[in-house]
């Protein structure tokens, strides 16, 4: 379902989802055509979780994320050209090329450093929430991570303290394991069923939602943010999505092609291969269908909006590829803060 939002905000939410999707498609195309980058992880298929969650944060709020950060960073308002430049190791990247895809940081947007060791992000985010509380501010911290984080001990130590100290943190677990491993949810290699039992044992309110249902995500996050701002403590949300078929451990592959939004209004065009993905698993197509059905937007308006987003992504690719690499000597600078 759609979040209960005014027209303009719904369209803005859709624009952000399209940005997330078209950015990564452009990145994959760029790498396939020879632009060299390190291995990277994509957010494709999880846009209906990140966009509605991030849209509810304020300027003073912070986010922490993991190796799968592109969507989060863009959802927070980062410049696609500078994100892409960082991924491609260019001097114009947010981190000056020192971080790369796994560690995109945009301090001025409240995008704090990521952890590519994954579990380590949970204590960092919990500490940021502690800092907000210590300062007497009503800022909250949103911590994004995959279900794999629940397999590392850092998670349990940190959520225990967050619960004991009522820290203003929202743990947003994006469980994208279905499709990656056969079987029922959760597909992760953890004995607990369901995953929400784990934070619940620490007396943290925990809710599972369909991560492709923007309205459901929006509502759960809204409640969690209200609780955090009111000083009532942390919340845990498990957003379940199906793993995009093109996900690979290292370099993703555009197995489903560049997303054809017309599949939303012309289902007869959906090809046989990966038909389930297009029909029922891709959150972006689901949101597109819901928008259309609500009568809030027409197909030609969708195509116009998408065209503008794609043009912006092409511009971002040109900017990143045209950007210089950093001076090699810069590798030796900045080990210590002065």
């Amino acid at each position, binding site marked *: 379902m759609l979040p209960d939002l005014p027209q303009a905000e719904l369209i803005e939410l859709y624009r952000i989802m399209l940005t997330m999707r078209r950015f990564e498609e452009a990145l994959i195309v760029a790498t396939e055509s020879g632009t060299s980058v390190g291995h990277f992880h994509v957010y494709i298929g999880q846009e209906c979780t990140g966009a509605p969650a991030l849209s509810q944060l304020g300027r003073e709020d*912070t986010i*922490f994320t993991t190796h799968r950060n592109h969507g989060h960073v863009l959802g927070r308002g980062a410049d696609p050209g500078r994100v892409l430049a960082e991924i491609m190791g260019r001097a114009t990247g947010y981190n000056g090329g020192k971080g790369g895809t796994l560690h995109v940081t945009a301090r001025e947007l409240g995008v704090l450093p990521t952890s590519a*060791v994954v579990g380590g992000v949970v204590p*960092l985010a919990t500490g940021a929430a502690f800092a907000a509380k210590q300062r007497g501010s009503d800022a909250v911290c949103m911590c994004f991570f995959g279900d794999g984080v629940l397999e590392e001990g850092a998670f349990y130590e940190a959520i*225990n303290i967050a619960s004991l100290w009522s820290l203003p943190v929202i743990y947003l677990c994006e469980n994208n394991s279905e499709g990656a491993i056969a079987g029922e949810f959760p597909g992760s290699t953890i004995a607990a069923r369901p995953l929400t039992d784990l934070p619940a044992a620490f007396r943290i309110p925990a809710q599972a939602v369909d991560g492709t249902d923007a309205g459901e995500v929006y509502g759960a996050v809204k409640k969690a943010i209200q609780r955090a701002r009111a000083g009532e403590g942390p919340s845990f949300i498990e957003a379940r999505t199906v793993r995009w078929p093109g996900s690979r451990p290292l370099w993703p592959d555009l197995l489903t092609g560049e997303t054809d939004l017309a599949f939303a209004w012309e289902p007869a065009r959906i090809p046989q291969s990966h038909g389930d993905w297009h029909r029922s698993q891709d959150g972006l197509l689901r949101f597109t269908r819901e928008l259309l059905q609500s009568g809030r937007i027409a197909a030609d308006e969708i195509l116009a909006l998408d065209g503008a987003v794609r043009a912006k992504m092409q511009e971002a690719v040109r900017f990143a590829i045209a950007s210089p690499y950093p001076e090699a000597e810069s590798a030796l600078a900045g080990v210590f803060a002065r």
Partner: protein
Amino acid sequence: MAAQNFLEAIREGLREEMARDAAVYVIGEDVALGGPFGATKGLAEEFGANRVLNTPISEGAVMGMATGAAALGLRPVVEVMYIDFITLAMDQLVNHAAKLHYMSGGQIRVPLTIRVQGGASGASGAHHSQSLEAWFLHVPGLKVVAPSTPADAKGLLKSAIRDDNPVLFIEHRDLYWSRGDVPQTDAVVPLGVAAVRRTGADATVVAFSKMVGTALEAAETLSETGISVEVIDLRSLCPLDLDTIVASVRKTGRLVVAHEAVEVGGAGAEIAARVQEAAFDYLDAPVTRVAAPFTPVPASPPLEKLFVPGKDRIASAVRSLLGRGAE
């Protein structure tokens, strides 16, 4: 100046910095009660429970939370009860605290101080006795400090807290009740500056933490037979004051590096390598290390005594460098 023991000096350093800067807070296991040795005693009463926070036995989360809070501008002082327990916080310290400034292209600073205590004493056994400084010297982005006197404990701690980088502040448990004059003013001791504790002409002994006292005892013994030893207290291992070591070696031509950590892969290996690169032509003999054997720390008192390098081993190393052999 006032005569204070090492623990009192630490506490004074913490008090002064907490009073000076509201962003400074102390966090760790039992710290609100003073910690096992009383280093933080009275601070919770003075500054309130939100500035001196007891935590669960969760070293990793505490280190990570302090890193996250430091990234947002607070100045946490984490106490890890025994340095041996820091293994549980290595991901947070090594992969996150040490690297966030560099990885973020300078967007993030991590003004984090980590107080740890260690060293072999009191038959504490292999999980409460280690000297692990070498691990952290290997990590770009971490500073490592190991004071030997109460005055330095206070002055270096104040510098560590004001530093915008993670600083591992290593205290030797055996020094906690040693006394010395401590400035009662705002006397900050800069990181990365060694102190010449005794001047001499025949050989240089470089040490840090408790081993400085052992080296001074060895120097005193050797002086009775006419051997003049210069003793350098490094105070900081990173940044390392190589200039002071090299200046001394140019004068004496002989160098012993003494530490309580095991010899293999220890700080002594790094110092020896750097000194031979910087002052090979001035060396009259190979650089010698005096350090612990390659074993876990044993508990039983006579075994523990054999493990910890004593003044006789340092004296013997110096004599052997001078070609006089052991007496």
